[in-house]
């Protein structure tokens, strides 16, 4: 690992007015929130009780969706340039490879299925990006929140710094202060959910080794007496090896290098020079707050929900929280949406948390059978998997993070053409290669997300948007067709490879209303400006339906 950056403590500020948003915690989720809000013009104060980035690699697997969100925030490329790109995984039983899977078996996407990148790099790059908004992001190191009192219009925070305490008023507080969230404790909120007794050892080691750049998972590995092991390649020749230790393992003992290194040696052999960078013995919980919004305090990331690490659903889930919340908060702060819009963050991300908890609990149960019957089923699946494809579907060595579908929730307009192909209301947008009017090759996702967007597919004729610009002022229109057409008040993209039309089920006239977080809010068989305006009102919580259903 490179030398950890130390940030100078921020002097206690002069008393100032009430801030629109204060983020507690400068981890990946808090920083993503700050950058997203700044891009939307909202000033943010970020308070962090430490003065550096994460110690140890911690979260390392960042999913395609997360990279696409960071692309929108202008920091995706830096992550991908440094990260190790992968898309395949192999599952072994002992030395036998049971099967190999591909998480992204098609081309025509800007971003890979996953990159591996140590959390300290992720934080460093997000901090550097945040510094590009000096007028909007006020990142304060070694500013620890010691008290929080809520009123109807906001919250008052007590903050301790190395050179004294001060008070800070905020309209909204985002608690991005992690799995042990002091804010959660301060508000006295229960955090229910089962704790799994199984203990795991993470060893991050530096070595020159020729393991494939894939997710390697072993059941009953020959090199380790425990039930499973997992290996990931990270940048700088660092490898993450995760050993399942069993419920009886002594955490203090197992994190000693003289205990760790023989386990590592058993994987990599005696001859490969290996340095231990970081290790950790952990057990985990699957838990969530019952509600993520408490008055003007909103919980994001691990403070709101925690999962087992198998599936990379913790960090990636948190980044999606930020993506879901920030556009809503910006609209509410600008007075363009009612405060009730924030309740839909709880509705949508609460559902996502449940999904993440379900998947990660099932993986954990598969890895740790508790009764003889469970073990017989589990071993039966493993024994069948090499030969029978159906057993590979049952085999659960991690269900890797995918963006959540938001179908059926209050902001989405019910699908008027449910039988049609393509994306449906609530689906996350998918990427496709496109060419712009100037002939430059680019990506569809670069034109979606950010502001609300109407994506229209056209044939040979330019679509007639009618009075749409008047009915929905500020709505960005993007027209996709095989040839460039002249469409006033719209950006034209050429579907050079036909993939956009294919993936969206785009027939001439098909239109999608896309949310600022690149989820489909509504789709239409043809552009009907009144219906589009209605769907937009619903998606911004301005119609009665949305607010009522989410309440």
């Amino acid at each position, binding site marked *: 690992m490179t030398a950890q950056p130390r940030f100078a403590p921020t002097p206690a500020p002069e008393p100032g007015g009430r801030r629109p948003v204060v983020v507690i915690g400068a981890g990946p989720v808090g920083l993503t929130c700050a950058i997203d809000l700044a891009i939307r013009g909202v000033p943010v104060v970020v308070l962090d009780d430490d003065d550096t980035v994460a110690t140890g690699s911690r979260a390392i697997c960042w999913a395609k969706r997360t990279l696409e969100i960071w692309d929108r925030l202008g920091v995706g490329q830096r992550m991908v340039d440094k990260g190790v790109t992968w898309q395949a995984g192999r599952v072994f039983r002992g030395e036998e490879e049971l099967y190999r899977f591909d998480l992204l078996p098609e081309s025509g996407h800007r971003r890979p299925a996953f990159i591996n990148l140590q959390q300290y790099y992720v934080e460093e790059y997000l901090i550097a990006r945040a510094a590009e908004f000096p007028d909007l992001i006020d990142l304060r190191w070694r500013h620890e929140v010691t008290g929080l009192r809520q009123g109807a219009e906001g919250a008052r925070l007590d903050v301790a710094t190395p050179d004294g305490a001060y008070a800070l008023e905020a309209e909204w507080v985002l608690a991005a202060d992690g799995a042990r969230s002091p804010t959660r404790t301060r508000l006295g909120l229960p955090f229910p959910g089962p704790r799994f007794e199984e203990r795991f050892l993470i060893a991050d080691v530096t070595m020159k080794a020729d393991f494939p750049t894939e997710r390697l998972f072993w059941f009953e590995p020959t090199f380790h007496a425990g039930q499973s092991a997992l290996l990931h390649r990270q940048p700088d020749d660092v490898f993450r090896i995760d050993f399942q230790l069993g419920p009886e393992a002594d955490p203090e003992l197992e994190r000693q290098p003289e205990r760790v290194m023989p386990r590592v040696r058993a994987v990599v052999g005696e001859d490969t020079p290996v340095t231990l960078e970081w290790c950790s013995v952990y057990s985990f919980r699957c838990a969530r707050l019952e509600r993520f919004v408490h008055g003007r305090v909103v919980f994001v990331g691990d403070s709101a929900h925690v999962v087992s690490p198998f599936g990379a659903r913790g960090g990636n889930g948190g980044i999606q929280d930020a993506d879901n919340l920030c556009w809503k908060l910006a609209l509410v702060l600008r007075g363009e949406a009612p405060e009730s819009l924030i309740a839909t963050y709880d509705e949508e991300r609460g559902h996502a948390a449940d999904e993440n908890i379900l998947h990660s609990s099932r993986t954990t149960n598969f890895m740790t059978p508790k009764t003889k019957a469970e073990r017989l089923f589990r071993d039966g699946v493993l024994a069948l998997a090499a030969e029978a494809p*159906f057993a590979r579907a049952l085999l659960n060595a991690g269900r890797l993070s995918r963006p959540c579908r938001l179908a059926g929730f209050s902001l989405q307009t019910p699908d008027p053409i449910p039988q049609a192909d393509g994306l449906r209301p609530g689906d996350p947008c998918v990427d496709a290669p496109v060419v712009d009017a100037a002939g430059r090759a680019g990506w569809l996702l670069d034109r979606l997300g950010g502001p609300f967007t109407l994506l229209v597919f056209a044939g040979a004729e330019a679509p007639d948007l009618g009075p749409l610009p008047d009915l929905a002022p500020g709505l960005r229109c993007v027209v996709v067709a095989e040839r460039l057409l002249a469409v006033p008040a719209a950006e034209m993209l050429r579907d050079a490879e036909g993939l956009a039309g294919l993936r969206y089920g785009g027939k001439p006239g098909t239109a999608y209303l896309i949310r600022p977080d690149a989820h489909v809010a509504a789709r239409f068989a043809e552009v009907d400006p009144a219906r589009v305006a209605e769907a937009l009102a619903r998606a911004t919580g301005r119609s009665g339906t949305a607010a009522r259903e989410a309440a």
Partner: protein
Amino acid sequence: MTGLLRRDDGFSGRADDVYESLIRAHQGLSDEESAALNARLVLILAHEVGDPAVLAEAIALAQRTLRRADGPRS
């Protein structure tokens, strides 16, 4: 395998739900009760399959993997 067993996704993407329902069915049962439940389940599912030729292939597959794996591990 001679090819009567299906190679497509018979679970229609819901394999994890199916697996969980099987595990849940055994919760709170003794080992003997679990074995008895499995026997009944096999009979019911064999009837759902119906075709003795398909069943024969399924039995052959199960037996083959049982030998290869040296039986269940403890």
